[in-house]
């Protein structure tokens, strides 16, 4: 259906793809895996006309093609959901869904009534019931991702390319997505599927291609490929090493009994948060569970002073933090790793070095003058510790792969010597290797006495990582689980509201 032959693509400083020959069969779901920065997104962009390959050939239905733009690819029947949600936030949901193929009425003019109606119908099929006239940007990231999905699938494409489609989805939505993928396969349409979540691959993919450092290292059927073997292929380490390191990342830890380090009391904001209270002890990891849009990110932002509150307050080690100011939260030792790293995290024009040092600058300066030596030391330390893969500290962060961008952000906060870490989806879009590293790191940090609030849509991660889980629904706390109660089932039950309140 869609093949590449010896494709090469270089960026200044890195060779993102080096002679990759990839082939996608008709009606198959093909997994594309690899570490962060392995070249998956780049390969997809070459396939879909965003980039032109430096060398090599792309063939579609046996014919050599060279798409000049994504539009060309789309016209030929290749639809794509890119890694970062790529829709237009100011436009309404319906208009995003139908952009480029709006239903026409009289005189060939757009028929908005029909468009709204169809959009409502289509999206309900994907579990999105909100008003399709709302601007897309007002939906949570997960919902946005579902809209992007619906858009690609509804375009009647022969090939649907999905770059980490589930990274912001809830389990329920993932199920829905997989049903849609099953339908596609049933209709003889092909899917390229990129994900770091291995269990997902095993659920729906037929074949797998593994990239490492821009080279293709393996391609073949997925069934029968051992999970550990797949990981060793990705990481390029031998099987035994991977086996001995194991895949469980969080260590078991005794429950802390110290006085809470972070205490949030009755955080309220109209229509967003309703009397949310929680406490985290030093050395404790508290999970925050809940559905898409349940207010987890808002809770984190409120604690970090980034969301003005109607009432409620935050204290660290018993001292009240002045409300509504990120600066004072940071001075109190509260640091937030935001959910949307492109919009809220990285400064794409600046280098890795500047991004890491950004928050810590005042500490790395004397009399307002940056002490370059100190910056270099800190940057060097965290680039090593987090194994950030970049051409060098001077490379613009926008050029890094998603996972490495996330690591840069983590480094930014670790450089602050935080007391409280609020991690909103810290491992989203991070490869298995890096994910384990990040999780080990979180563990280490907790061990050092930090209070950690962990938000994750990955229930497994939430369960394994947290000593306690606070469950939110509609901006209010609906349950708290601790000890043996911290299981996926119980969390699901709390989210669904089937437990006692």
């Amino acid at each position, binding site marked *: 259906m869609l093949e590449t032959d010896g494709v090469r693509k270089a960026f200044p400083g890195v060779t993102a793809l080096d002679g990759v020959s990839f082939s996608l069969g008709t009606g198959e779901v093909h997994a594309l895996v690899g570490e962060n920065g392995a070249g998956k997104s780049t390969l997809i962009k070459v396939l879909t006309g965003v980039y032109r390959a430096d060398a090599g050939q792309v063939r579609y239905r046996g014919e050599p093609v060279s798409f000049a*733009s994504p539009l060309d690819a789309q016209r030929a029947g290749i639809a794509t959901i890119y890694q970062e949600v790529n829709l237009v936030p100011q436009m309404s949901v319906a208009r995003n869904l139908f952009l480029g193929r709006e239903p026409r009425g009289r005189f060939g003019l757009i028929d908005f009534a029909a468009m709204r109606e169809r959009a409502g119908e289509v999206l309900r099929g994907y579990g999105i019931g*909100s008003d399709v006239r709302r601007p897309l940007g007002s939906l949570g990231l997960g919902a946005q991702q579902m809209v992007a999905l619906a858009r690609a699938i509804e375009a009647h494409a022969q090939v649907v390319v999905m770059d980490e489609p589930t990274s912001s989805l809830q389990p329920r939505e993932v199920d829905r997505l997989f049903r849609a993928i099953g339908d596609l396969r049933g209709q003889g349409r092909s899917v390229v599927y990129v994900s770091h979540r291995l269990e997902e691959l095993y659920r729906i993919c037929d074949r797998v291609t593994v990239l490492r450092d821009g080279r293709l290292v393996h391609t073949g059927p997925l069934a029968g490929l051992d999970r550990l073997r797949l990981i060793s292929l990705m990481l390029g380490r031998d099987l035994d090493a991977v086996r001995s390191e194991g895949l469980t990342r969080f260590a078991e830890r005794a429950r802390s009994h110290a006085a809470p380090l972070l205490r949030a009391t009755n955080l309220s904001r109209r229509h967003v948060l309703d009397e949310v209270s929680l406490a985290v002890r030093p050395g404790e990891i508290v999970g925050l569970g809940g559905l898409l849009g349940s207010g987890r990110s808002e809770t984190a932002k409120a604690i970090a002073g980034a969301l003005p509150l109607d009432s409620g307050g935050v204290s660290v080690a018993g001292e009240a933090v002045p409300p509504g100011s990120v600066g004072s939260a940071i001075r109190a030792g509260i640091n937030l790793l935001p959910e949307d790293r492109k919009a809220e995290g990285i400064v794409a024009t600046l280098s890795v070095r500047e991004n890491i040092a950004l928050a810590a600058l005042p500490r790395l300066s004397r009399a307002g003058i940056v002490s370059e030596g100190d910056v270099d030391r800190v940057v060097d330390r965290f680039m090593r510790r987090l194994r950030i893969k970049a051409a060098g500290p001077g490379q613009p962060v926008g050029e890094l792969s998603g996972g490495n961008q996330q690591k840069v952000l983590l480094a930014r906060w670790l450089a602050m010597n935080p007391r409280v870490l609020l991690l909103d989806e810290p491992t989203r879009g991070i490869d298995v290797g890096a994910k384990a590293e990040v999780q080990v790191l979180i563990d280490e940090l907790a061990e050092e006495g930090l209070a950690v609030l962990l938000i994750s849509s990955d229930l497994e991660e939430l369960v394994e990582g947290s000593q306690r889980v606070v469950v939110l629904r509609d901006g209010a706390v609906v349950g708290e689980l601790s000890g043996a109660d911290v299981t996926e089932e119980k969390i699901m039950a709390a989210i669904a509201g089937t437990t006692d309140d």
Partner: protein
Amino acid sequence: MDADGPGRDHPRGRVRSPGAPVTTTTRERAGSLFRRHGALLVLGALLVIGTLAFDSFTTPANLGNIATASSFLAIVAVGMTFVIISGGIDLSVGSLFVLGGVLAAYGSRYGVVVALLLPLVVCGVFGLVQGVIIARTRMAPFIVTLAGLLAARGLMLSLTDEGATTYLVEDDLFASIGQGAVLDVGYPFLVMLAILAVAVVFLQRTGFGQNVYAIGGNEDAAALMGVPVARTKIVVYLTSGLLAGLAGALNAARLSSGVTILGIGMELDVIAAVVIGGTLLTGGAGGLGGTIAGALLLGVIQNLINQIPGLSSSFQQVVSGAFLAAVVITHRVLGGVRDDDS
């Protein structure tokens, strides 16, 4: 018009969870209303104030003058609205306006058709070239059209012996397009309304219009969604050039001559009209109705300031500046979504 029409950006209400009903506060609703219709509301308020304060304000002749005189700015602003919604800016319009007028006056000696076609072709080509440069090289529109501003004015000066020659309109039919009036309202205003109607349909009800909003909202995303970004931009700048040239030609018809000292700084007035009309300079949101209200508003402000006796010319400028600031502040405070930046 359709409630889902573009530019109708909705208040950023919060959903509880998927499927939950939308909730918006009154304040948010008022804010969104103000953002969309703020210029119109201020315009209404000023008309009332003007009527109460000055006898000679609400006469048909005076209102007709304001309407006619504002229509040129409004026509140019229609083009600018497309440009700004697409996330760009066009600084060349003032120069194209004066160039269009000179060419129209020159062309009128060959009849009305040439008088209209000549400025449209030349200014259209200017817009087209700027659009191609912007779309193909990804240079900032601000810079490309700044160069366009200089180049078009340079061309105009070289055509008129450094501005010394004023061509007179020699075709009566052409002149009558600019000078005729229905009940104190000049034809240019009617032309403006016609252009507005066509532009609204294009912006709101065609795929092209959707594409303009999409690339203004998020250009990279739009490209990935298959929007023909380059083509859309080229058409947008072409439109802006054409409308600036047309407005210049109409104005030449009205003045019966290709006056060479026009259009300096006009781009800023046009941008002000668009922005007062509620279109965001960041692109992706806005509409044409507000733009027209914004253009009329500027005309009314000038007229009102003139009504105040004894205000020195310098004070008039202070008042205009203060007024502009007041309008944008009101806009922002009442209509803007506070993104809680601190």
